[in-house]
């Protein structure tokens, strides 16, 4: 459990560093928000333990995430 959470934490730090560089290079909203969504999923599944919960919670949360990210991407494209 501790090894897993530590691995996820390191990945999150890495992805955040990548997103910072993407922002500095003015990459597209779609790319930056896609990376944000990936980090969101990692926190929800691993840190919030949704991977152990009934599927309806993951479906609900990630559906909401998809709606938010798609809407923002369209508005910022």
């Amino acid at each position, binding site marked *: *459990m*501790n090894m897993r*959470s*530590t691995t*996820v*934490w390191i990945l*999150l*730090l890495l992805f*955040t*560093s990548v*997103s*910072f560089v*993407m*922002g*500095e290079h003015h990459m597209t*909203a779609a790319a*930056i*928000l896609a*990376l*944000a969504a990936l*980090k*969101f999923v990692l*926190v*929800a599944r*691993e*840190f*919030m*333990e*949704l991977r*152990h*919960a*009934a599927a*309806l*919670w993951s479906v*609900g*949360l990630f559906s*909401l995430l998809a*709606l*938010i990210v798609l*809407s*923002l991407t369209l*508005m*910022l494209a």
Partner: protein
Amino acid sequence: MPDSPPAPSALPPHESDRHPLEPPGGVLVWMIVFIELLTFAGGLGVFAAQSRAQPELFDPGRAGLNQPLAFANTLILLTGGWCMVRGLTAIRGGTSKNALRWIWATIGTGLLFSLLKGVEYADKLQHDLTFHTNTFYTLYYALTVFHLMHVLVAVALLCGIVRGIHTGRYHPGEHLDVESSAVFWHMCDLIWLLVYPVVYLL
């Protein structure tokens, strides 16, 4: 402070006594998660729409934000999330002293985040960039201050958890409050993971 012997094994959440449909931390805190995400989604939508409508305000506004500070704050919040996971694992394993260390570390990241936000706002205010300056700053302050308030609430909840650990209230057999507080803490991460790119990076 009671320090019970380690449990034979920390029960994974899905093997606990909870109802099969009950999420980690309970239904109430997850209702809060969904409501807050919807609220911030609305705010971010307004920010995005105004960003398209008024690029002459939003482009220079965003360029004037402290990118390294926001990046550091993101790393700090995510580290707090990791500390919270370690703290919850320690409670489930019956190692109260370890749990306290990790939860204090989580509180520390929340306070550090708040301090750096204060530095960020102080810099803006010194340059007369206030809530009323223009639409960009109104939305910038609204979104980030509202998020900061959530972080401070999370810190307060964790302080209550620390007190509960000290009194022996939380242990492997009873720690729903710790799970709920952990979910609330991670919710602050989820919100920031959306606020950070929209407000600072794009």
